[in-house]
């Protein structure tokens, strides 16, 4: 569960990215976070990922107060929060299999378990046939599938995706959102998708949190008109 209580974030240059924001996301929920550029969405993600610390307030994720997390404990915390970005961030010299396996290697997963899990997630994101391909041999949609596979390889409880369809055409975007729905259903992962794309929000209706000027402008339940 994610619980954001009166969280504000003021950067060193004085920019107030978040202003006493409050929200709650239940386990296994699927939520869109929408808002214009500079509204504070990315800062919210960074706080949830443990990259930034709130200036005030509390961000509790899976019972952990992210703001008071010690530096050395951040990596352990991150194993429960998968993050996917618009630009995929795959390692170009590693194959699809190795890119996904990498996430398991760094947390010392035994080799046998690692192979099994990589095959499992590649099948889940429907890219098993490309497991020996290198990222530059894949389309944007395929690369995003690999990035998603890597993010869920460690079975995180929460998966955050920052503009995951930003570089994709509408058909591929639709496929990627369907994939998130599948992960949500099959892996019981809480999904938070940050997006500008109203089209996908309408095609795959879920709860929508609108952020504007560092505040929650609206929190719309699934099916509400946008």
């Amino acid at each position, binding site marked *: 569960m994610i619980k954001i209580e009166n969280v504000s974030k003021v950067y060193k240059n004085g920019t107030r990215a978040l202003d006493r924001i409050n929200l709650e996301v239940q386990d296994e929920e699927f939520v869109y976070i929408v808002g214009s550029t500079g509204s504070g969405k990315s800062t919210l993600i960074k706080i949830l990922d443990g990259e930034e610390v709130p200036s005030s307030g509390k961000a509790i994720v899976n019972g952990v107060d992210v703001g008071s997390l010690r530096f*050395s404990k951040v*990596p*352990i*915390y*991150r194993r429960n929060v998968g993050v996917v970005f618009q630009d995929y*961030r795959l390692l170009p010299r590693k194959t699809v299999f190795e890119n996904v396996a*990498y996430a398991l290697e*760094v*947390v010392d997963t035994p080799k046998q378990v690692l192979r099994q899990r990589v095959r499992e997630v590649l099948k889940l994101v429907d890219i098993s046939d490309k497991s020996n391909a290198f990222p530059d041999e894949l389309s944007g949609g395929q690369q995003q599938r690999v990035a998603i596979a*890597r993010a869920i390889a460690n079975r995180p409880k929460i998966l955050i995706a920052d503009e995951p369809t930003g570089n994709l055409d509408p058909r591929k975007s639709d496929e990627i959102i369907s994939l998130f729905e599948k992960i949500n259903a099959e892996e019981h992962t809480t999904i938070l998708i940050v997006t500008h794309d109203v089209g996908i929000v309408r095609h795959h209706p879920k709860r929508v949190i609108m952020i504007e000027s560092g505040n929650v402008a609206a929190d719309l339940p699934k099916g509400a008109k946008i």
Partner: protein
Amino acid sequence: MFRRFFHHIKEGFYGFGRHIGMALSSASAVMITLILIGLFIVLTLNLYAMTSSIEDSITLSALVKDETSLTEEELQSQIEAISGVDYVEYHTKDEEFDYYLDTYNDPDLRSFYETYRDDNPFKNAFIVYARSGEDIQTIKTALEAIDDIDEVYDGGDNTYTLVEILDNVRIAGGTLVAALCILAIYLIYNTIKITIASRSDEIWIMRNVGAKNGYVRAPFLVEGIIIGFIGAIIPMLVIVLGYIYLYSTSGGSLFGAFSLIYPYPFIFYVALTLLGIGVVVGFFGSYISVFKYLRLRR
């Protein structure tokens, strides 16, 4: 655990290979620094040996009054009780006369002086050895305070000045070695900084999927150690072969006055020290670099 260890080693070598140009240029810079460090270590240790032997050879001659009422043993125990005295030798006036004659190689001069033996102007003397050159002055004062001692001779101000100069050179050598070590650390630090920048995506991914800082850090530390190790190989050869050559061609002494330390095993210890310094500066250079990078990012 072993799998992880070998993984870090493999990744370290991989990183070295991936940035081989940069790594080799850094290793070359380290190499030059280590050659200088090696030269200063050899110089400093030789100076140390030299000053120690000069200090050891500094003695005082305490001439005993002819009309003394004390026995040789009584006087000797008084002198031995002086703080800083290492040991004392007693020379009779005849022995002192012989020593004096021995300073002349010319047989004519020797036979001329020999005629004075019956009218020996020398006095019985105690030769006092100090534990350190620094104690000479206080021992001299203490000897002069003994009633039965007539006169006390030391090597004069020039001896003190020489010891002081050699001491300062020794300290300067040590300081230079330390400064050069810092320079080598800085060179490796910069190389690893560039390596980190070029691998920032990989580091980001590692951290993003929950790799601990130690896991992120380890391959860079290995890479730094490899650079330091490679940078030490040529300096080791230069120092070992150079010193052995210098020793054999000079016959073990420079300018016929300053004796060099015997090369075996001395120079191999210096070579191992250089290897150790190379590895340690490689480790620290990369440690500081990765530490600074990781500290800035949660």
